């Protein structure tokens, strides 16, 4: 039987928090199908919820981006730095060893200790928004600087450098191929100098702790710590920032749901989970290559073939979610693969949840009557196949 032509992937969103219309066709050909990438190569794509969980825990799925068949979804991911990222581009056993170095610093318990500090930081940002008065653009006033400031504090990066970090990590994720490579190299050079300082005299942040716990003990070297720090900075910035902005838009565009949430603030953690499911900020939750044959849902993925996992579609799999396309802050089936599944599941997930929860609480409590100052269709959006983003978010209250 001739196979249907592989549809193009990724496709740009037209609504910032909804999948593009073309993904319907992809979902209908799922849960496992082939898609065509921008460079003309084909890749397997997983769109089913159950199948996503299954393949992301399969021992033959590899994250090694140096593999010649590793799928590249946008030109900027061709760079050498993108191909050698710590943790993200690693397989066991090295991945697991690195992950264990970092787990204590991002565990749920550890993150909960950061709540008062994050509350204070968010409150300061909202003070400035109120002082400035409407209309205010929540992207530069909150969504971008909040995760940036928090990860810089957590790592122990000097505050005066956080604008450089914010700008450079934005370019790594969202710039053109050349901008992305240059920005990544600038970040590496900067972190390199920072690590040299920390090895001389470790301070109290995560970088200093890793120097004491892992570099001075001989577990890892200078280069490895630079690589880890780079990933932590990049991963922390864009995803949380975009989820915050898209979350605000989604809540404002669903006033009935926002009202239910404001009736009882105890519903906030559940609402954050539903937002994570519904907006699927990263669109794609995994890019991988098979290092051995994988049988899944009646298909045979052969060794050396490329694999993508669509978080957007898995999160809306009607077999596992009632009314999957409906945003419902009270739903109990909020389970999602937005943070991934398996050994690579997001290290910073609990930090991201906490930042979002505190930001939504503070915004909607202190700015009652918050509303978009422009039509949602007019918001400038960016990103296809990776972090979905609005470039500005003007609001009034």
């Amino acid at each position: 039987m001739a196979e249907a032509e592989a549809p193009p992937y990724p496709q740009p969103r037209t609504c910032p928090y909804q999948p593009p219309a073309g993904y319907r066709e992809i979902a209908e050909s799922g849960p496992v199908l082939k898609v065509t990438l921008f460079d003309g190569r084909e890749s397997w794509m997983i769109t089913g919820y159950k199948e996503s969980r299954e393949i992301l825990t399969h021992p033959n799925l590899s994250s090694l981006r140096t593999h010649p068949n590793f799928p590249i979804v946008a030109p900027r991911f061709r760079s050498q730095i993108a191909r050698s990222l710590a943790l993200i581009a690693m397989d066991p056993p090295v991945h697991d060893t690195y992950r264990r170095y970092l787990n204590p610093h991002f565990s749920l318990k550890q993150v909960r200790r950061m709540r008062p500090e994050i509350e204070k930081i968010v409150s300061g940002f909202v003070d400035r928004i109120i002082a400035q008065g409407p209309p205010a653009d929540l992207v530069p006033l909150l969504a971008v600087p909040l995760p940036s400031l928090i990860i810089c504090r957590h790592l122990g990066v000097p505050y005066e450098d956080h604008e450089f970090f914010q700008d450079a990590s934005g370019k790594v994720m969202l710039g053109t191929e050349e901008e992305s490579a240059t920005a990544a190299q600038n970040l590496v050079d900067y972190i390199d100098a920072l690590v040299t300082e920390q090895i001389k005299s470790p301070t109290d942040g995560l970088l200093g702790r890793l120097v004491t716990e892992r570099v001075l003990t001989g577990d890892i070297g200078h280069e490895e710590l630079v690589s880890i720090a780079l990933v932590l900075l990049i991963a922390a910035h864009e995803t949380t920032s975009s989820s915050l902005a898209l979350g605000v838009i989604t809540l404002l565009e669903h006033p009935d749901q926002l009202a239910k949430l404001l009736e009882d603030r105890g519903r906030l953690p559940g609402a954050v989970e539903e937002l994570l499911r519904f907006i699927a900020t990263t669109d794609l939750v995994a890019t991988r290559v098979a290092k051995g044959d994988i049988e899944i849902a009646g298909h045979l993925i052969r060794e050396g073939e490329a694999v993508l996992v669509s978080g957007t579609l898995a999160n809306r799999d009607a077999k596992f979610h009632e009314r999957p396309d409906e945003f419902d802050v009270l739903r109990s089936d909020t389970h999602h693969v937005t943070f991934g599944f398996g050994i690579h599941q997001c290290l910073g997930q609990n930090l991201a949840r906490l930042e979002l929860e505190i930001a939504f609480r503070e915004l909607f409590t202190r700015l009652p009557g918050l509303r978009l100052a422009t039509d949602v269709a007019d918001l400038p959006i960016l990103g296809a196949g990776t972090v979905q983003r609005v470039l500005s978010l003007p609001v009034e209250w």
Partner: protein
Amino acid sequence: MRLHADRESCISGGRCMATLPEVFDQDDEGIVVLLTPTPAPEHQAKARKAAYLCPARAIDITESPTPD
């Protein structure tokens, strides 16, 4: 119901502790600590949910045979 949590495969996602803190905790390394292997009847549904959400599939559940 009897629970087993594999501390070797745990990746510190904290989904278990967030779902059922009466049964699941984390140590200083962020690794799962089982507070009791036999959850109270009212905690069993959430124990199943915790096992389902665990990204590392580190939680095993042995259901008691139904008495009939």
